[in-house]
């Protein structure tokens, strides 16, 4: 083993820069987070004064009411954003697959929200949802559907769906690009053969196109799920987690615990729990990616 490593020493030179950066910025923080999660930490970053308290941070989290509230929000946020983004993106990719006049322009416009900064997107939508001068409220009042502009963001029951709409706006183009790339790999001949054999549009989609896209779909959904699980900017800028935690998701909650209330130990314990969940998702992610290669090797 060691001799083999030594024989390949030149090969490592190629990956060394990448691995070094990763080690500094990833491995060390992970280790440090795990360590901190077992300590009681004083406010401020005077971390020399920390004291070991075992699993107290964890029990404190799991028995708190906020934890369950935030977890529920995260679940809705992640599932809602991921599934709807995927369906909309896949639909758009299918509708854009056939050539027509203006297809390139339309595709470009649909991609723009994905490129612009989430901070800009948050401000644009915050303005659209504005409780006094927002355009949606004005339209609803104009159509006689509401007496006065509804308050989308300062309302416990509408805030999360409203933010999900913003998130999908920014995210469906990613699913669209991935699925467009996937659609190009579906062999034309197979589709034509199916058509000759009398398969209708739906049957061709379900029996030929879709099976070909299974891998891309899995990877896309997983990447979306991870990105949504980890999102921060949209809730942070638009609501800061409020009103009364109704739009706090895990990440914003951890950020507030750490940098707002300076409870580094508890925030670290939260991070470790998050980590465990992500490792499970990561397992499926790696399996989806390697599934690709294994199949290729077998064929």
């Amino acid at each position, binding site marked *: 083993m060691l001799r083999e490593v030594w024989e390949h020493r030149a090969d490592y030179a190629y990956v060394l820069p990448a691995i070094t950066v990763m080690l500094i910025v990833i491995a060390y923080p992970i280790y440090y987070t795990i360590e901190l999660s077992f300590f009681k930490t004083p406010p401020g970053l005077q971390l020399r004064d920390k004291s070991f308290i075992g699993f107290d941070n964890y029990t404190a989290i799991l028995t708190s009411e906020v934890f369950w509230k935030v977890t529920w929000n995260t679940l809705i946020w992640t599932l809602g954003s991921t599934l709807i983004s995927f369906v909309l993106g896949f639909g758009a990719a299918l509708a854009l697959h056939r050539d027509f006049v203006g297809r390139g322009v339309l595709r470009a416009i649909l991609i723009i929200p994905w490129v612009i900064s989430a901070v800009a997107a948050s401000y644009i939508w915050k303005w659209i949802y504005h409780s006094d*001068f927002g355009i949606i409220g*004005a339209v609803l009042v104009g159509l006689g559907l509401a007496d006065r502009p509804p308050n989308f963001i300062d309302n416990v029951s509408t805030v999360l769906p409203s933010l999900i709409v913003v998130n999908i706006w920014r995210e469906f183009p990613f699913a669209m690009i991935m699925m467009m790339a996937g659609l190009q790999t579906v062999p034309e001949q197979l589709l034509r053969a199916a058509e000759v054999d009398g398969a209708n549009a739906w049957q061709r989609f379900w029996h030929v196109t879709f099976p070909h896209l299974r891998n891309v779909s899995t990877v896309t959904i997983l990447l979306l799920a991870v990105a949504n699980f980890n999102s921060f900017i949209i809730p942070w800028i638009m609501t800061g987690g409020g009103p009364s935690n109704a739009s706090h998701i895990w990440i914003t909650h951890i950020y507030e615990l750490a940098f707002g209330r300076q409870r580094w130990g508890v925030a670290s314990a939260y991070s470790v729990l998050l980590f465990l969940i992500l490792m499970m998702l990561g397992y499926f992610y*790696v399996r989806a990616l390697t599934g690709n290669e294994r199949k290729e090797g077998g064929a």
Partner: protein
Amino acid sequence: MTATAETAPRDRPRRRIRVEGWRWAGRVFLVFMLLYTALPMIWMLITSIKSGFAATQFPPQWWPDEPTLASYQKLLDPQNSVGQDFLRFFWNSLFVSTVTTILSVIVAVPAAYAFSRFSFPGRNFLFFAVLLRNMFPAVIFLVPLFILMRAIGLVNTHGSLVLTYLTFGLPLAIWLLKGFYDNIPVQLEQAARIDGATRFQAFILIVMPLSTPGIIATAIYSFIGAWNEYIYAYTFLSKNDQLTLPVGIQRFFSENTTDFPGLMAASFMMSVPVVVLFLVLQRYFVRALTEGAVKH
């Protein structure tokens, strides 16, 4: 076969109707998506050319009575303090994003090449370790990185941002480029080496040109990621003259909460560079995804 031939004439009109139906559904869907995508951006532009007074009226002016570019002039005027700040944030973002992009390409290209061509012990483990970086949220790394950056004296410098931004560009960059290199036949390089080229020459002269679309895609991805990044910049930088655009704009407008035209104009100008960059180079991006990531 004969059965199809017999039933085909009877079936055809009905089938065409059904295909037409799907196509119409597709069109309606695209119109809906176009409205969903474009209307918020159009409203941003319309608001940005209103006066502060015109923006805060109910019902709103669908098109401003007196369109004005005052917000843009204010943001781009180096004479007043708002313009000075905005231009400085803009320059900071440009600097950080450009350095990040150049470094990511320099680091990702050899790594992807090695993952594609060589088999050394731990290759798979390292490859997936790199990919797994995508899984973890910025927040997990914030506290330790903040402490680390403070220890090595990088807090309040752009170096802290470049170092962290490198790591989220890298996984996708390496993954995309590896796909590219997998598709370039090894024989091409072998031929070059038989003709007397060194491995490095073969790499620079044969492999690099063939993977240009991948490198461009990688560069776009890194640039956009760095340009739009918020949370690290928000945590690592506190001096006003160091801020990048997303944080700078947020700081500025948390002090001027009612200047909606200004906010929309700033959001628009912050989006222009990345949108233009992406639209010009998007075909490389889609191609890189098709060839690199999806096909294999």
